[in-house]
């Protein structure tokens, strides 16, 4: 992975790719030998800031948006595929995250802004595993927290008037009965 690959890098990448595939197979048939020859052709992706990345096909398979695009275009992979909504920094982070086996602890070291960029990119690229992990991390910030805490934490402006807010509480009283209203 990385910019502008060479043939020796391709061989290394293929090895790394096979290692990844092997660890992924834990859930299904453990270590069954595959007789198929793996595609070594890396796929070129061009980010919004015009940088071209060469990415292994196994990683691109997780980017359902791109994978679908490739399949719809007769598997034409010689031209770089444009990603107008993804910057090079974001794509680099995604590849880094993937290389670390989607380690959640790594995400927690990133700033909130960057996490949101990753979420938007994962959503655009339709990367289910990545999106699940990132959205769950955000959900954990909201879990068991008061409404006021959530507003402060995410810098959300409360645009309800006190009357509007009271009305919602009253109409949904059945929902708020389960716990003490703490704000």
């Amino acid at each position, binding site marked *: 992975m990385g910019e502008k690959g060479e043939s020796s890098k391709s061989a290394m990448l293929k090895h790394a790719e096979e290692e990844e595939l092997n660890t992924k197979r834990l859930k*299904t*048939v*453990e*270590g069954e030998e595959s007789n198929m020859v793996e595609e070594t052709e890396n796929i070129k992706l061009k980010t919004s800031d015009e940088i071209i990345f060469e990415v292994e096909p196994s990683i691109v398979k997780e980017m359902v948006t791109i994978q679908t695009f490739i399949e719809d275009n007769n598997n034409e992979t010689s031209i770089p595929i444009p990603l107008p909504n993804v910057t090079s920094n974001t794509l680099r982070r995604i590849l880094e995250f993937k290389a670390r086996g989607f380690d959640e602890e790594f995400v927690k070291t990133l700033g*909130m*802004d960057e996490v*949101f960029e990753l*979420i*938007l990119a994962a*959503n655009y690229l339709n990367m289910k595993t990545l*999106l*699940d992990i990132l*959205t*769950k991390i*955000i*959900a*954990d910030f*909201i*879990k*068991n927290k008061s*409404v006021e805490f*959530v*507003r402060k934490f*995410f*810098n*959300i*402006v*409360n*645009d*309800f008037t006190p009357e509007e*807010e009271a009305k*919602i*509480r009253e109409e*949904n009283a*059945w*929902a*708020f*009965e*389960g*716990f*003490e209203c703490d704000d």
Partner: protein
Amino acid sequence: METQDKISALPDEVLGHILSFLSTQEAISTSLVSKRWQPLWLSIPILDLDDITFIQNGKSYSSFFNFAFGSLLARNVQQPLKLARLRFNSCGYDNNFPYSHFKIWVNAVIQRGLEHLQIEMPRPFELPNIILNCKTLVVLKLYRFRVNALGLVHLPALKTLHLDNFTMLETWHLAKVLHECPILEDLRANNMFFYNKSDVVEFQIMPKLVKAEIKVNFRFEIPLKVASNVEYLRFFIKPDTECFPVFHNLIHLEVSFWFVVRWNLVFEMIKHCPKLQTFVLFLPLESFPPMVWTFPQIVPECISSKLRRCTIMNYKGKKYELQFAKYILQNSRALQSMTIHNKRVRNTYFANPQDKIRILQELAMCPKSSTTCKILFKS
């Protein structure tokens, strides 16, 4: 620092995705955050209800059911529900569980195209029939129910069925349910009890089953042939087992014994798993006098050439346990790891640390057939 509200700028489906990890109660409370957030919880196709906060705040079941019905009925009836999780804690103090309300709620939820249903009851109640007659269900996980009478069963889309602490009047009830799940891939029958063993019970092979976990009251059994196609199997071996089917696809096997390890049955079972790669043995927690056993001279083919991982749970360092570990180490050419779990329950199984070291040494010094094998200890 940044004062921008980036989260509200995320598209609806992403915010919905975030909220889908919260319980329904928490998701509804986010409707107070701002106007942007107000309608979001209604679009999540998930209901995740837990009565614990109601119990902790001294509320009754009827209060909880107000909430359960409100969460359901506030939504657009056309909008499908994908997942419903309903959890009643067993410490619910109110003995007046409104079973009829519960049944109505389940009925309403199932009819919204439900794909995933998970219910945990406070005490065993009769399973509403409609749950077993739903053409959209893909995942069904039920905890603490009983079945006295079986109605129409039709689960054409079901791939996962987990029954825990489940009682059925007759063994044929279960056979019938399994028969009506033609594409089932994952079966768990854990702590299942039956009252009557039916004379004529037709349990059939489940062709699509990939994973099975079976623990049934030891007076009854589910014939192993049901799971003969699986890749993963965990079960209790009954001491009176006479024969095993061949498990052509089995790669991962976990076996337990009720009281005493029957080593003959362990080997018999392993011999019927030609592709076995991972083997886990759960030794009984209590120590009973072991049966006398001589390990086979002719090593089963899968032990010598296919086995990669072996784990022994509740290891106490007893004679046959150690012999088994050594037997595997000495004969498994493809072995990558031998893991010994010494479970500490109140007092450690080992009399003193010296014992533990001695056992570690014995295993470490044992000749190994596989050059890449690692020995791991966990307590």
